[in-house]
């Protein structure tokens, strides 16, 4: 079997196996899998409203996936995307309502604020690693909690004791009336364009620039990079900071697109942590992240329709969705199986 065929077959077979196992779960617990999957399908692609919201759900996943993937490619594990995202979320929401500016300045400024906030939060991690050898996983996990509580406190102050900031102004929102119109009032917003632009940016940095070459060198082999005269510490800080830019922008998607404000959170949004899975599903490549995020976002959004249309309880739905993602992530096993199968065939 040629490599190309295997590469296409693996994800397809993985998803099919995931769906079959999910169907078994439904049958065992007394629900109709055909009805369930129809509901899932309709929840994702059923009408323009669903499609719009599915894309809206995918958008922050792309960015959090990019953040994790970028760090991975440069030899760092940024588990702090969640915290960077929360900082970006708050920054974008604040700039979004606190300033009155023309749209062509206001929206970019709000996005920039989010990127800067995320970058700053990640910079701390990179700085600690470069200067004091503090492991980035520890530093960024702790900064996740710090970010959660800092943003909560700031939001409380900004909102005079309420639980959310004022709504962002028209001039800073990513929502567009025409987008709502063509998607039957879904909350689809312009963020998807920002996200796809960032996919290109990540690809461009890593594959085209000397800086990307340095970042990758440092990521793969610090000693060789030092030998080649690269400034390893500077590159670690920079890698983390760029990763934080993506994370911060993911927060801006929520602030300026989905919610139009920042509100006090009881816990993490989960988008940052899911970004790890998205990045790994996408093999840490920019395009792969788009696919990983699409899978994650679609399933997550479409799942809402399963209790609605097919009456399957949330708990079972959660199991089914997790199973599908599990099998896609286990693609390696399926790859092995396919190769063995191929070999046997050749042997005959």
């Amino acid at each position: 079997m040629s490599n190309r065929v295997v590469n296409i077959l693996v994800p397809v077979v993985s998803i099919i196996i995931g769906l079959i196992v999910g169907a078994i779960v439904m049958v065992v617990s007394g629900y109709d899998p055909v009805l369930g999957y129809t509901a899932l399908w309709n929840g994702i692609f059923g009408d323009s409203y669903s499609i719009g919201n599915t894309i809206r759900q995918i958008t922050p996943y792309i960015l959090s996936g990019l953040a994790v993937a970028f760090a991975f490619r440069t030899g760092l594990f940024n588990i702090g995307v969640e915290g960077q995202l929360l900082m970006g979320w708050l920054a974008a929401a604040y700039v979004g309502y606190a300033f009155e500016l023309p749209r062509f300045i206001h929206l970019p400024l709000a996005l920039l604020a989010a990127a800067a906030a995320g970058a700053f939060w990640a910079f701390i991690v990179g700085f600690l690693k470069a200067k004091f050898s503090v492991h980035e996983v520890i530093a960024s996990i702790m900064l996740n909690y710090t970010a959660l509580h800092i943003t909560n406190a700031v939001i409380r102050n900004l909102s005079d004791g309420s639980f959310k900031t004022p709504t962002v102004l028209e001039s800073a929102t990513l929502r567009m009336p025409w987008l709502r119109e063509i998607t039957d009032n879904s909350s689809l917003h312009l963020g998807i364009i920002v996200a796809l632009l960032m996919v290109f940016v990540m690809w461009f940095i890593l594959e085209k620039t000397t800086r990307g070459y340095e970042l990758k060198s440092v990521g793969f082999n610090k000693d060789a990079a030092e030998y080649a005269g690269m400034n390893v510490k500077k590159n670690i800080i920079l890698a983390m900071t760029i990763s934080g830019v993506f994370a911060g922008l993911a927060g801006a998607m929520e602030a300026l697109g989905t919610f139009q404000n920042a509100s006090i959170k009881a816990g993490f949004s989960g988008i940052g942590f899911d970004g790890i899975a998205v990045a790994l599903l996408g093999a840490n490549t920019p395009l792969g992240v788009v696919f990983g995020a699409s899978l994650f976002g679609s399933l997550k959004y479409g799942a809402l329709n399963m209790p609605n249309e097919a009456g399957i309880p949330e708990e079972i739905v959660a199991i089914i969705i997790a199973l599908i993602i599990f099998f896609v992530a286990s693609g390696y096993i399926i790859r092995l199986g396919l190769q063995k199968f191929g070999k046997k065939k050749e042997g005959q």
Partner: protein
Amino acid sequence: MEHVIEMLGIRKEFGNFVANNNITLQLKKGEIHALLGENGAGKSTLMNVLFGLYQPEAGEIKVRGESVKITDPNKANDLGIGMVHQHFMLVGNFTVTENIILGSEPTKLGMINIKDAAKDIAALSKKYNLDVDPNAKIEDISVGMQQRVEILKTLYRGAEILIFDEPTASLTPQEITELMSILKLLIKEGKSIIIITHKLKEIMEVSDRVTIIRKGEGIGTVITAETNPNELAELMVGRQVDFKTVKKDATPAEEILAIENLFVTDYRNIEKVKGLNLNVRRGEIVGIAGIDGNGQSELIEAITGLRKVKSGKITLNGKDITGLKPRKITESGIGHIPQDRHKHGLVLDFSIGHNIALQTYYKEPLSKGGIMNYKKINEKARQVIEEFDVRSGQGEMTPARALSGGNQQKAIIGREVDRNPDLLIAALPTRGLDVGAIEFIHSRLIEQRDKGKAVLLISFELDEVMNVSDRIAVIYDGIIIDTVNPKETSEQELGLLMAGEERQVKAVKEGNE
């Protein structure tokens, strides 16, 4: 004599690459059979086929005259085949006994019976004169001892046929001698041995017959007693090999590198270079001879800017380069073949093309305005690959990891030489390489010298230092203890100098006069 193992016409492919083609190897009972070939010739592949890790595409394996299919290592174990890997497979914080019984734990009423196992192992150890303490922890014993544990492991599992994969690669000379006598003892006790190696000296010393493979093809089998190293080398490489490097006399010109009173500390802040003085002139190769750990690494790192200089002065072409950043030093005209090619020399996950750009990627024409020009980089890579005979499956697109050690080293040398530096530092440039590659690298170093460059060679191998250098500086405990002319010295004298016996050497010299 009967054959315990026959591998007949073995063929193994990986995709389009043929790793083994029509190789035949017949192991007689009670012999030491050497499997000789260059790095990447397919020796390990063949042995992995025998050990059940790979399935051959064609050919037949017979064990004790019976045709068998070895599907996995357990099957190989059952057939009495044991393998001592180059990289030991031991658990560091387990004892010798625990490591040996791992995977086939003897049980008594469901409990692991360590005591009896330890007794058995002690007895085995005594029988084969291995001198292993069954209760010692792996992490506490030497590399040579760990290898014996691996040998014991195969014996404990009843191996009659032992395969040794590059067994001497990580051993000290003394440990090598001991290993050789262990091999002979094993044969005396009725075992049969296949030893994979590319070291001709060992083959001549220990083996009965040699099977040679070259680029995946079986070349044939010869009786050791009827051959000589030159013939073996020729069979292995496919052409005449000169062991004695031929070179013109050096014509040293002005001083390129000058080191004055240099002090350097290592990572634990312990002084490793203690007031070292050295100079290298245009058109000469200065070899630094010394036992590992006498300050060689720190010296090179200090010259190249990878380590801080505590005090002293390093000048290149009369310009003070002490304490400059590595890149500044590189740009001042130093090429550096690092001693650990995997750690410093290459980014293994990059393609060879990207690795060729490692020192110059930021300069035109390889990049412009911060944007890489991969077209130019690949062009440059192709040129270096061709010029330095780097053999790789997919040319400049081959991942560096997929190259054999020799070809990796050639790529590094190509990259460094291509920049045309005034001073080329070559640290252990031939470590772990086969004869063909060593010969190639030596000739390239000499070529640099003949082009009027200065070359600083650091090596632990006396042969290499004596063959290649024009001057030998012996390093001992952080200083150059003496500088000698290779034509006027002997291995004995160098050996004594390297051991720090300055006075005795002088005495020997005086006595001779």
